[in-house]
């Protein structure tokens, strides 16, 4: 029931001018629950727009050295209680009838009491406990000051990278990360944790890359990204626009990021086992213009043989032989008296297999067990392991020794290079990851990559850099990037579902951490003990598009919203661009050559496929054409068969002369 209309207004009526900061509550403290320099408590009206993650400002009550202190904080916990001494009193009071309770004339007195963690004191010194002042909802300027963004958003700095908006009380404040702390050199790397299927990890990275490309200051140099697509079609449609809702477009506009797909994306994928269709979910014929094969020969693989060989494989003896083969045999003329002085040119796995076969035959023929200090058993073992690589990584490793690689040295500013390894065996994935990243690092060390900063995005980090398990080449490499990459401009953006299962030094070196909806079991692990229970609960119930961000400038984690990526998601892309059917050899070759010459027709190269040439010969011709990118694609491709055509014209079968008829043959006429 309301007071009589004639009654004077109650003192609880709270009118606040629009242009003044919104008064939320008042700081309180008791002896049992005191305020400190890093935490304070305040109460609010029941209808105040305050929740976990809300940023507030406390206005001090007494000037310190002529300045009223301002304390900024973020709400980390909240509680409510009434004047009820025992729940039983409520039951008795309403005769155990909840319906009566709902009809009660008066609600009990109730409090909303919040705990906030201090984000910043102004002035910084002297650092004092939070005063019993009034609490205001932070406005845009307060948010910038509270998160120390004012330092890098000022004129002359401008290194802010929008990560999303902070929402509270009907306000939306842009939140910026500091490029110097996201992409180096001060700090670097980003780690994202969140359960799968809630548009957290992949979407957040896609959004953040778009934001970086839009806002990374020109004076800091160029930037590009290499993304490993490790599962499904997640990253296969980065150049295709999605349908955005109005609220997402508003966010893009507010944050100054174009609501458009990435304009410069290049896809790389190994071949399937047959060698003429690329092993990628981006196989729709309409999307082949920027898809290139990723293949390596013996030389490339030998440098990273360690990735594919486990500890049992590589004992000291085997390691010595592998080293000998890599340094003395591969890619150079080699001869040995035991093998009759024959000169070997080992450029491919096929050559290597032939070399080992002859070597073993020669040792057996000479009844020798040692060759250049290597025992025949070791030689057999190494041969088995190395030659087996070509089988384990079929499609990636070529037998002819030719490589088709990322354009290291020619990387383009604001370009995204996606390497699709989703359909590959684990060994091949590891090999690709190790070699690609190592080469990127080598080029960055020489300042010869083509860009100054490179973001490498790896999903499923718990698989590549697990917290426990054997020390692998890939994990060592990730640790190296995490600990030293920022000096080179090599930045690791990593993601996983369970952060607790990732090596501590990898996530620990990530200057920025992003958390999406979290699994409650994961939140129960010790790594999250520093996060309060209310914040953990919020993390377990985050909506799509909501993130919690930790950044070196932010004294406490902050909750933000980010817009839906402006690119097609994997699922949408797979629906709109279904996979093409497995092409025949002719179709596959034509499709690839058409990326060089769209006018090329099947009829113009059909003669090659009339059964005169083996598949591997045709594929070799295709690869050479793709590698050399001639102006006359058709001519170059066909020219590789002319000599074969000439030499293979079947000679007329010799006509057997007719035997003369015997004399007196009654049928001979």
């Amino acid at each position: 029931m309301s007071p009589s209309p004639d009654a004077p207004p109650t003192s609880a009526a709270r009118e606040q001018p629009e242009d003044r900061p919104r008064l939320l509550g008042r700081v309180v403290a008791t002896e049992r629950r005191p305020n400190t320099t890093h935490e304070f408590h305040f109460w609010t009206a029941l209808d105040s727009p305050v929740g976990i993650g809300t940023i507030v400002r406390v206005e001090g009550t007494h000037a310190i050295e002529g300045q009223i202190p301002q304390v900024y904080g973020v709400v980390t916990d909240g509680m409510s209680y009434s004047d009820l001494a025992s729940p039983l009193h409520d039951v008795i009071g309403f005769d155990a009838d909840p319906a009566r309770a709902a009809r009660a004339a008066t609600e009990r007195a109730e409090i909303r009491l919040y705990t906030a963690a201090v984000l910043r004191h102004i002035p910084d010194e002297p650092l004092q406990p939070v005063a019993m002042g009034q609490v205001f909802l932070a406005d845009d300027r307060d948010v910038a000051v509270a998160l120390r963004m004012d330092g890098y958003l000022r004129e002359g700095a401008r290194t802010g990278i929008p990560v999303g908006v902070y929402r509270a009380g009907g306000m939306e404040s842009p939140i910026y990360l500091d490029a110097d702390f996201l992409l180096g050199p001060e700090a670097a790397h980003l780690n994202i944790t969140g359960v799968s299927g809630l548009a957290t990890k992949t979407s957040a990275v896609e959004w953040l890359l778009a934001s970086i490309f839009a806002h990374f200051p020109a004076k800091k140099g160029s930037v590009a990204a290499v993304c490993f697509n490790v599962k499904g079609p997640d990253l296969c449609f980065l150049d295709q626009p999605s349908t955005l809702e109005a609220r997402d477009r508003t966010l893009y506009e507010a944050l100054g990021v174009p609501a458009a797909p990435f304009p410069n994306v290049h896809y790389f994928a190994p071949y399937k086992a047959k060698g003429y269709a690329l092993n990628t979910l981006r196989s729709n014929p309409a999307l082949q213009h920027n898809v290139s094969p990723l293949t390596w020969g013996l030389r490339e693989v030998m440098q990273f043989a360690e990735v594919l060989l486990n500890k049992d494989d590589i004992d000291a003896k085997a390691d010595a032989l592998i080293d000998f083969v890599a340094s003395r045999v591969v890619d150079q003329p080699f001869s040995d008296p035991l093998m009759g002085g024959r000169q070997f040119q080992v450029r491919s796995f096929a050559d290597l297999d032939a070399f080992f076969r002859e070597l073993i035959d020669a040792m057996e023929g000479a009844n020798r067990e040692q060759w250049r200090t290597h025992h025949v058993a070791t030689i057999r073992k190494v041969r088995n392991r190395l030659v087996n690589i070509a089988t384990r990584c079929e499609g990636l490793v070529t037998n002819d020794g030719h490589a088709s690689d990322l354009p290291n040295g020619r990387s383009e500013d604001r370009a995204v290079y996606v390497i699709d390894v989703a359909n590959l065996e684990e060994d091949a994935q590891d090999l690709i990851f190790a070699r690609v990243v190592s080469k990127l690092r080598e080029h960055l060390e020489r300042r010869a990559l083509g860009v100054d900063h490179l973001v490498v995005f790896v999903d499923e980090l718990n698989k590549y850099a697990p917290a426990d398990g054997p020390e692998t080449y890939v994990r060592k490499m990730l640790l190296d990037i995490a600990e030293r990459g920022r000096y080179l401009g090599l930045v690791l953006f990593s993601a996983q579902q369970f952060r607790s299962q990732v090596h501590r030094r990898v996530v620990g070196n990530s200057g920025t951490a992003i958390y999406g909806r979290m699994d409650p079991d994961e939140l129960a692990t010790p790594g999250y003990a520093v996060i309060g229970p209310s914040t953990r609960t919020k993390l377990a119930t985050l909506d799509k598009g909501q993130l919690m961000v930790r950044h070196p400038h932010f004294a406490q984690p902050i909750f933000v919203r980010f817009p839906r990526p402006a690119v097609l998601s994997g699922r949408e892309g797979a629906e709109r661009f279904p996979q093409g059917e497995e092409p025949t050899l002719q179709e596959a070759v034509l499709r690839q050559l058409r990326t060089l010459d769209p006018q090329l027709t099947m009829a113009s190269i059909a003669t090659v496929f009339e059964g005169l040439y083996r598949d591997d010969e045709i594929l070799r011709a295709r690869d050479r054409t793709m590698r050399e990118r001639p102006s006359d694609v058709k001519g170059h491709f066909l020219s590789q068969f002319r000599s074969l055509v000439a030499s293979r014209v079947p000679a007329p079968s010799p006509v057997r002369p007719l035997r003369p008829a015997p004399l007196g043959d009654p049928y001979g006429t």
Partner: protein
Amino acid sequence: MGHRRQLTARALHEALGPLARAVAPGDGSLEVSLAAQEAGRTTAAPLLRDRAMRAHAVAAAADDGVGFVAFLDGVQESRVVAYVGTVPIVHGRTGAVIRARVDRRLVTWGDGPRSDDALYLPMGGVPPAVIDALAATACPIVDTTDDTIGAEEAHPQQLLRRAVHLVQREREAQEQALAVAWCRASGGAPLYLDGGLPPSEEVLAGGGAIGVIKSHHTLYATGSALATVMSLGAGERSSIFVVETRWRAPVASWYLRLRAPGRRDPLWGLVRVEASLAALNGVLARAAEGGSAPADDPDLAADRISQWVAAESAPLSLPDARWDTMAYGIRDCEVYLRAALGRLAT
């Protein structure tokens, strides 16, 4: 609410110096430590309609039964702060507030609570220097001199009771002032008053204030009438009777059983309701407008008001010891005053 700074023990000590012996603040106020002076009594009261006292079942309200718009209560606290010889100096604090119900929640009405504090002492029983020293504290001084008590033979407790009585008078004055303000501003909207109705003609004529008395030092029934009152069942009220006093115009009153006492004291869960004749008429007039009652039946008005009072029995005002008869809105007033004015007893 006054803006004068409250008297502190230190300020008083500095003001009095050797003129008086300061008393360390004890744990309890005089309201608690002094045994009740008044013994219970019974008195017969004339019935308004019935020929004999009887029980009336208060019918369940067709609506939610909620009628009160606001609650009024006051608090007081008296403490001995010093002795001048055998004469105690009492510091009394009082406060009163109206808490109005807005969207089922209670908020402070009007300009907020009224409060005051003063020093209570028989000014004729202490040297003038003491009066001068106390005046320096800027705390008002109330003379408790009682001509019926000789200064020489007065027992200190008599002086203390006199002081507490005057503190109570001050508290009642504040409550009455708030009730008057309500009646002027609210146009007769029902106000739940803790205790009896004040003697203000304006309040009695306004018709909005309903007094609810929890204590029963005086029972307005004798003999079989008293037996009827004490045996009222939950949800029953007594016949309406008229309370006549020297200091106030006659008002209608009746007993109402809020909760069944079971094996408890027969007075447990029993309140006495006071309503001015204007209040009864006002309730009847509103009922008549709604077509639910004849305009000349005070029993219907008493039933309606009883429904209002009963509706305030939830939520419970536990952990207050008087929860059987105390409305939650009244407890809210006391909690508010304690919070707003500092440590104050009832």
